[in-house]
């Protein structure tokens, strides 16, 4: 299943985004603080809502998803006067076309719960009668409006496939230091581990055969970039049980030298995390600035690397949405303007800015999307940044 389009109203930076089309690969660009991460967060929010309460590894549901974002007042758009937040997503699996629409607002009482203003599921153009809310039962018992049908296995039988898909959405923004110093930092881990702190635990929990196969593929890829990189394996500390990645580096000694993840470079760790995530699961994958810490020549090849790994893992059509600032990443001529989601800040909130007529001419003349579309999101004052200090 893939997301075909998304509409949001009153969501963080976005007063209104109407029908943003999504493709198999999507590149989100925009200046700092324009709302790229908040756009990705719509999908993470739906994932949090769709994960049933008490589910492992995350306790989900609407109330929890809103609380995790510091409440409805932080989630609503500052530019909007409307109190309702609306998410309207269309998904397709080739056979069926689904639409899930969720509206909610603060209850306005002391405990300030969030209540649902609308929740509608449409399958192939027909509303599912089981999910057209508020329904008769909701009117009789308003407390019911604090939980979505999506999160409730007793209510989502007719669209369980949707709940499964949304709850499996994966997000990665691996912060190497959190992983390297996980022991010192302690066991506090954010919900769903977005920053890769528990990445090694995920590797540890993968069954031996799959784990070995994935590590071998990562090793082959890394060996092309770091020729000294010989063998990547997984080991559990015999005394503490702590999981470790171990690599053999070619060395003047015959057997080479062993290093674990603490000695890996930030770039190597981020690349390992990226490659692993690509091989893990087949639902929507959200990647935050995958170019960080990587050499430009590798960044240029990231789009091909992503396609190659997904294709060879039998998930060629797995949907990926990544945010980036990198012209090098977008210099790949196989990326079309239709897969670029460009945001610009306006007085009325962040808006989508498709390619204009002149940019179309640039693209037709052979320039990459990085050259044609990225300059328009460059902050005007960047050249004066130093002078301003």
């Amino acid at each position, binding site marked *: 299943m893939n997301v075909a389009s998304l509409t949001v109203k009153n969501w963080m930076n976005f007063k209104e985004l109407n029908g943003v089309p999504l493709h198999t690969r999507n590149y989100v660009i925009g200046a700092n603080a324009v709302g790229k991460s908040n756009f990705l967060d719509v999908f993470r929010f739906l994932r949090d809502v769709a994960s049933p309460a008490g589910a492992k590894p995350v306790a989900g549901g609407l109330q929890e998803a809103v609380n995790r974002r510091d409440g409805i007042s932080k989630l609503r758009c500052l530019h909007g006067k409307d109190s309702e937040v609306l998410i309207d997503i269309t998904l397709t699996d080739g056979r069926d076309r689904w639409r899930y629409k969720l509206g909610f607002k603060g209850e306005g009482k002391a405990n300030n719960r969030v209540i649902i203003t609308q929740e509608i599921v449409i399958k192939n153009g027909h509303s599912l009668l089981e999910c057209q809310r508020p329904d008769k039962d909701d009117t009789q018992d308003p407390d019911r409006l604090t939980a979505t049908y999506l999160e409730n296995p007793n209510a989502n039988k007719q669209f369980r496939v949707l709940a499964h898909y949304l709850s499996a959405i994966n997000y990665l923004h691996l912060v190497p230091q959190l992983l390297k110093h996980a022991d010192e930092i302690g066991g506090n881990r954010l919900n769903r581990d977005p920053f890769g702190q528990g990445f090694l635990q995920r590797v540890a929990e993968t069954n031996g055969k799959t784990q070995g196969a994935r590590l071998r593929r990562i090793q082959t890829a890394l060996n092309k970039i770091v020729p000294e990189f010989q063998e990547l394996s997984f080991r559990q500390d015999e005394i503490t049980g702590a999981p470790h990645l171990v690599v053999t580096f070619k060395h003047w000694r015959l057997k080479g030298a062993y290093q674990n993840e603490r000695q890996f470079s930030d770039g190597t760790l981020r690349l390992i995390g990226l490659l692993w995530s690509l091989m893990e699961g087949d639902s929507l994958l959200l990647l935050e600035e995958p170019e960080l810490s990587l050499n430009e020549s590798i960044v240029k090849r990231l789009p091909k690397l992503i396609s190659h790994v997904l294709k060879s893992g039998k998930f060629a059509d797995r949907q990926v949405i990544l945010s980036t600032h990198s012209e090098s990443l977008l210099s790949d001529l196989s990326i079309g303007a239709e897969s670029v989601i460009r945001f610009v800040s306006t007085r009325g909130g962040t808006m989508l800015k498709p390619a204009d007529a002149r940019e179309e001419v640039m693209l037709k*003349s*052979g320039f990459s999307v990085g050259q044609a579309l990225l300059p328009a999101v460059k902050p005007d004052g960047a050249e004066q940044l130093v002078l301003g200090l």
Partner: protein
Amino acid sequence: MPLSGYIMLVAEDVIGLAFGRRLIQEHAALNLWRETNAHGNGAIRRDILKYDSMARNGVPAFVLTDLDARPCCRLLIDEWFSGQQGPHQDLLLRVCVREPEAWLMADPGPLSRLLRTAERNFPKYPETLPDPKQFLYNLTRTAPSKVRKGLLPAVGSTAKIGPEYNDLLLPLVSQLDIGKAAKRAPSLAKARQRLGELAARVAAGVM
């Protein structure tokens, strides 16, 4: 797309871009649409046929490159368009002889005030200088130490310019008298003339 006054500006460095902006601003019919710092001429040469294609499709481009050590402008253009039709009239490929620093020296007023040196120390025709940047560096001897340290690369460094080179020289581009400079720098005068012709075509709606 019909020819419009929205023009793309490309130059090898920020000073070249500042000159480009200054020249475009002289014409009400022209609006700067986008600017690209190509960081040297490699990227300009690589993309020149793409800029040409844009010009043929209604998006004019003002591309400013440096002559550097080449013997003449014509050879540079022939080399870049070898085997191809020459540049379209709306691709203004202009060659700065030899670097934008020569254009800066063409009206020595602002630069002489920055370096605290007399205007007579500047050449009357700076485009004849084989290495304008080096000439400018030699003039920094009398400059206040803050300016000198900002302009010159550290001793023993392979850097081409000092840490505040662009920040110190950029404001001078808007201070100089462009008409006066054009009289002493023929390649600047030519670039100005070509932009004027483009502006006239845009104003007249000529395609």
